[in-house]
């Protein structure tokens, strides 16, 4: 590449075109507004908004979070403002941003996923839908949708039938073999996959002898999970043809590069936003620097460039 030329960071995740491969992960960036005083949001590849349900949801009782070695457990309980308030109060503001807005949705029945997808169909300012299949399925004894290939496929089909937006299925790592779920979502027609969601865990206070989270268990995130997440991304990239968005403990551009080298077309940054609100922008700058220093003209040359020989 020419010395001094600005590296091209544009990527395509199936039908979803991004100005760079760095997205803010759902549940760690609110509705974007929360970070707007600290981050130039137009620099981001995209924002995945906090998981949205049909109706507002209060969430779990506190304590909801606890720090663990190099990570944190959260049991927020999918608290969110609900579809109606999102469309009326948040989307008009988000629409004005020069960045991709991806709406993360979840339901407690397959029908609820469909209703959400239908409500977002044709709505201006939404670049894609990310389907959270990690929440409990009330029709199936509370087992998470995403732990069963057939149920994952049915949720994916339902969403695809009801919307015109690109559909990304966000996979749970709390399964025996994530590749079987990934393949099921692919066969059902998903445009892309994102992984991983948090790993289930717990922590106990030895003085009170109680769980540190009111919900007992929570989702582990942060750098503690990165090697696990990275390997799952590596595995899934090799078993599906659709693009994969990688996430799990990405703190800086070196972490992001590992996911890109493993074959992820884009990455999501989550817990790092809590530690350094500007983490996403710093990662984008770091990727540019890496490309320049390594004479790489496009970040796309990095994607899947892992050498295992």
């Amino acid at each position, binding site marked *: 590449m020419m010395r001094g030329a600005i590296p091209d960071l544009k990527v395509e995740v199936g039908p979803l075109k991004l100005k760079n491969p760095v997205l803010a992960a759902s549940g760690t960036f609110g509705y974007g507004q929360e970070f707007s005083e*600290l981050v130039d949001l137009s620099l981001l590849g995209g924002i995945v908004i906090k998981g949205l349900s049909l109706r507002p949801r209060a969430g779990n009782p506190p304590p909801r979070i606890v720090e663990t070695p190099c990570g944190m457990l*959260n049991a927020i309980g999918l608290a969110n403002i609900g579809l109606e308030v999102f469309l009326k109060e948040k989307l008009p503001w988000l629409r004005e941003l020069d960045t991709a807005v991806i709406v993360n949705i979840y339901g407690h029945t397959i029908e609820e996923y469909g209703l959400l997808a239908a409500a977002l169909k044709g709505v201006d300012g939404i670049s894609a839908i990310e389907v959270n299949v990690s929440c409990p399925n009330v029709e199936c004894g509370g087992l998470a949708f995403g732990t069963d290939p057939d149920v994952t496929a049915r949720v994916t089909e339902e969403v695809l039938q009801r919307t015109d937006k690109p559909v990304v299925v966000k996979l749970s790592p709390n399964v025996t073999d994530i590749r079987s779920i990934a393949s099921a979502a692919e066969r059902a027609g998903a445009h892309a996959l994102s992984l991983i969601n948090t790993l289930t865990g717990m922590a106990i206070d030895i003085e009170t002898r109680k769980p540190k989270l009111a919900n007992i268990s929570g989702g582990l995130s*942060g750098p503690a999970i990165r090697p696990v997440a990275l390997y799952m991304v590596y595995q899934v990239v090799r078993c599906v043809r659709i693009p994969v968005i990688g996430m799990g403990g990405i703190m800086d551009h070196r972490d992001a590069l590992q996911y890109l080298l493993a074959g992820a077309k884009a990455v999501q940054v989550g817990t790092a936003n*809590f530690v350094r609100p500007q983490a996403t922008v710093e990662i984008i700058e770091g990727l540019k620097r890496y490309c320049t220093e390594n004479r790489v003209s496009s970040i796309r040359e990095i994607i899947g460039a892992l050498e295992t020989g």
Partner: protein
Amino acid sequence: MIDRDAEILFNKEIARDTYLMGLRAPQIAAQAKPGQFVMIRVRPGMDPLLRRPFSICGITGGENIVILYRVVGMGTALMSGVEEGNRMAVLGPLGRGFEMPGADQASVLVAGGMGVAPLIFLSRQLEPSSRTFMAGYGTAAEIVPMDQVAHDPMELLIATDDGSFGHKGPVTDLLEIHLAGMGRQLPTVFTCGPLAMLKRIGRLAAQRGFPCQASLESNMACGLGACLGCAVRSASGRERTYDLVCRDGPVFPVQSIDWESL
């Protein structure tokens, strides 16, 4: 709201396990109001991962913020060892602070332990003749020496659990005595401290009808209203709803919190 690396001007133990830290943060100092807080990254690296929230205890020289903390865990233990001249990332000012009382309104500040921090900042902005400041500690060794924190001498009523200094018993005893002395006049009460103390003051406020603002503590990941980790159940309405300590507080009207849920 600003996120900057701030230089540590001093970091000294002023009572048992209790430290006073000064940080050069002109933009945060210029915006900060009593009751607001900052999120501090104790050190770079992955462990501890999250920032820690600290009430702003004061502003000095117009450009420095002062925080007061007790060593309670890994984060504060590491913090206590950081020497002046080093830098730490400081994000703030965050949250909603105290609503100032009317000019002729009498106010009572009731602190428990480290709860004294935001109330010291508040007391500076209240007319000395109209405010009464009381603080409770476990024992005399924990008492924050006000001459080290405040430049102007500040009269404090002290209570200790073990009676080693001042009134023996909870600081709420002092509040009750003070209220009795005021007769029918009702002060505005500002409070911060352990949950048991806040609950007791909440009950007193409901019984006696004085307005009361309480500053709450919580685990927090972001301080920005994004992680939703610092939820506290609100008293309003039949449906279960939560406020966020970081965004809707940390200062709340005492009647707006469902104290029984805590």
